[in-house]
């Protein structure tokens, strides 16, 4: 076995997986806190903190969905289209006919479960199926809500504007989501099986588990997280728009990778993903407090990804890498 061909990993390398998300968040957070300490000071600036952080929640949810897909080595390239579609369902349907709206959302879940089954049975690559689905979701969104607008049910916006004491609500939500995600992936049998499928499907099947069940469940959960992202985004923005979640697909992929996940499957971190999503979201505020033109918003996101992965990969490079 040509073991030495693989990048050798030193003792420190084991910790780099948790290093990447921390670095990515600190890079963004430290300048913000330094220039605008109100963001961490206690309750006096509560509303401001909530405002600044709230829009991270839909990204966190979408990223957790993407994380689930990536845990089994798949990817969802229709995330932004799905999230946008859900805002349209919320705006155009839910406000008029709750039953129909819920039915539509359930339909999305069923389609996602089917995608999981399809990918398993036909051995089709998820990347290309979800590219196809991205057109379908956008088509549906345009059909039910051709132009931005809509009327989001009050319950969604009310839920997103709860005010728990002491800690800003978005932080509470994010912490809960990170905990839930961690529990799901690392403490439940499902999470272990999903990560197992991401690493070695054959052995999961040979040990008597049904890989199709795992894939169906994973994709149904991807859909569920996408729906939650859409509902929260609609609640926060009070808008329904077929393009509202633009860039969510790539942002969510970046958040998972910044969180220490890998495309190859089997390697994910829920807390890291939440950190990564926050880092991506806070870039706008970073530019504001540093008085940098927002023209740089995309570029700074790029640089943060570069920097975090550079630091994360630093220790791996200690070994010999023969080819890339």
């Amino acid at each position, binding site marked *: *076995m040509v073991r030495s061909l693989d990048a050798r990993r030193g003792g420190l390398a084991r910790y780099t997986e948790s290093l990447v998300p921390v670095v990515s968040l600190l890079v963004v957070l430290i300048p913000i806190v330094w220039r605008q300490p109100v963001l961490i000071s206690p309750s006096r600036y509560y509303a401001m903190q909530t405002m600044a952080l709230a829009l991270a929640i839909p990204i966190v949810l979408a990223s957790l969905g993407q994380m689930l897909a990536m845990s089994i080595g798949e990817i969802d390239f229709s995330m932004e289209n799905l999230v946008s579609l859900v805002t349209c369902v919320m705006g155009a349907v839910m406000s008029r006919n709750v039953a129909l709206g819920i039915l539509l959302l359930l339909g999305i879940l069923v389609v996602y479960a089917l995608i999981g089954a399809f990918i398993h049975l036909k051995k089709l690559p998820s990347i290309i199926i979800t590219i196809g689905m991205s057109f379908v979701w956008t088509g549906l969104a345009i059909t039910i809500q051709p132009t931005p607008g809509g009327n989001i049910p009050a319950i969604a916006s009310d839920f997103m504007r709860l005010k728990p004491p002491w800690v800003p609500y978005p932080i509470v939500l994010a912490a809960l989501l990170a905990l839930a995600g961690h529990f799901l992936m690392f403490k439940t049998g499902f999470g272990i099986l999903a990560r197992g499928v991401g*690493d070695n499907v*054959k052995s999961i099947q040979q*040990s008597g588990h049904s890989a199709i069940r795992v894939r169906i469940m994973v994709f149904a959960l991807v859909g569920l997280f996408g729906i939650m992202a859409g509902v929260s985004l609609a609640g926060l923005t009070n808008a329904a728009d077929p393009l509202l979640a633009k860039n969510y697909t790539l942002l969510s992929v970046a958040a998972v990778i910044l969180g220490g996940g890998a495309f190859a499957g*089997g390697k994910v971190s829920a807390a890291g993903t939440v950190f990564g999503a926050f880092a991506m979201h806070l870039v706008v505020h970073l530019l504001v407090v540093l008085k940098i033109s927002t023209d740089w918003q995309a570029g700074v996101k790029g640089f943060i990804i570069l920097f975090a992965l550079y630091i994360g990969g630093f220790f791996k490079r200690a070994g010999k890498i023969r080819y890339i």
Partner: protein
Amino acid sequence: MADAFVEVQGISKSFGSSQALSDVSLTIAPGECLGLVGHNGAGKSTLMNVLCGIFPPTAGGFLLDGRPQGGEYDVRIANSLGIRAVFQELSLCLNLTVAENMRVFHPEFRGWGWRKRAGDAIMTVLDEIFPGHGVRPNQRVESLTLGQRQELEIAKAFASGKELRLLVLDEPTSALDYHNSLQLLNYINRRKGGRISFVYISHMLDEVLACADRIVVMKDGRISGEVKGAGATRDHLIELMGSKTSAAPGALGNGNARDLSDRPLVIAPKGKSESGAGRVSLREGEVVGLAGLAGHGQTDLLIDLFDWRRNPDYDIGGPLTFIPGDRQRDGNFPLWSIVNNITILVYPRVRRYRIIDLSLERSVSGRWRDSIGILAASLTDNILSLSGGNQQKVLFARCLESDARAILMDDPTRGVDVGTKEIIYRLIREESGRGRSFVWYTTEMDELKHCDRVYVFRNGAIVADMPGVEATEEAILRSSF
């Protein structure tokens, strides 16, 4: 035998047009250790896959504890009836911890505290079979050595809450070194005779002879013979497997030393070694063997030699090529035809006006097919349509067709049948006669007799070197430990 645990009745299995098993019948008694030997493609693994419920037979069936098993029989049922297998290909999930892997394979570890219970269960078994294994329950499997993974794989089968009735071991020692292999064989010998039956499949006939009560020989999907374990001999088994005995002619063998000291060096140590450890040198036409326990730095040296531009320790005179032992991982291009797999090193030779000439490619490949007998319906068939041994022949053809002065071989006969091995030995002999040099890492003592010089490895360093004629099994083992 009325009290047999397993009674296989006329099982056949075909994959498309190829018949992997035809009308195989077999019984396994409780507590028995059955040795199963035969060439690659003789049907051993297929038979065991059927028994473990991985795929159903095309015809025939089998009884377990006297009860016939029908069409719904699958891995899950096999597992619940106490049938488990350790296959050549490891089944662990590398990204999961040892305890999590236990949970995947033994779903009874659930509810509060499963992590601890699963960890304790696997540790107990590991301590019993492989004392001094050094595995911890919360370690990720990817951080274990190959040997440790194999140990874990074996221990996992014993460490279930449910009863184990039959354990199939398919080449269990391929990643284990000599010491651990002995531990395993000792453990099997201790456990057999109880309720657990074993099926031991291996190309290492000595291991089979060391533990089996009864040895079944398979050939071309049928059982070609059966002998009692006690009193069976290597030669008899090889005869039943249907090949000539592997007493290789002694052109390079013991007692036939060649004097190559006047030949130019192809691989030469450069400068002074910092650590004082021994280093390899290789002369034109020489065959150098790397010995020692598995995983003690032999492959690393081969890779370091191959990546010679970044290697400060050696002067390399001329191009090198590399023949891996793990074909699937390191050798094959799985979507390509046999032809494309052969010609990748020699594009300059099959091009006209910078464009690859298909007919030239085919003629180069055809030449090799004829000279080393690559058994393929057509050379444009996919490489994976070949058996393992023939895939290995393709890798040899690829490297020997090139103009490399030295060929580095990383245990090239791993999992290869005796017939192919003979061809490989012949090729090495012929090519070294023509001035090609070889560095040959092998896990089989037998093969060292083809070498002019043998270097023994321990803990990543060369601890001894000796001329091939002096390289006795005893001398090598003495240096390895």
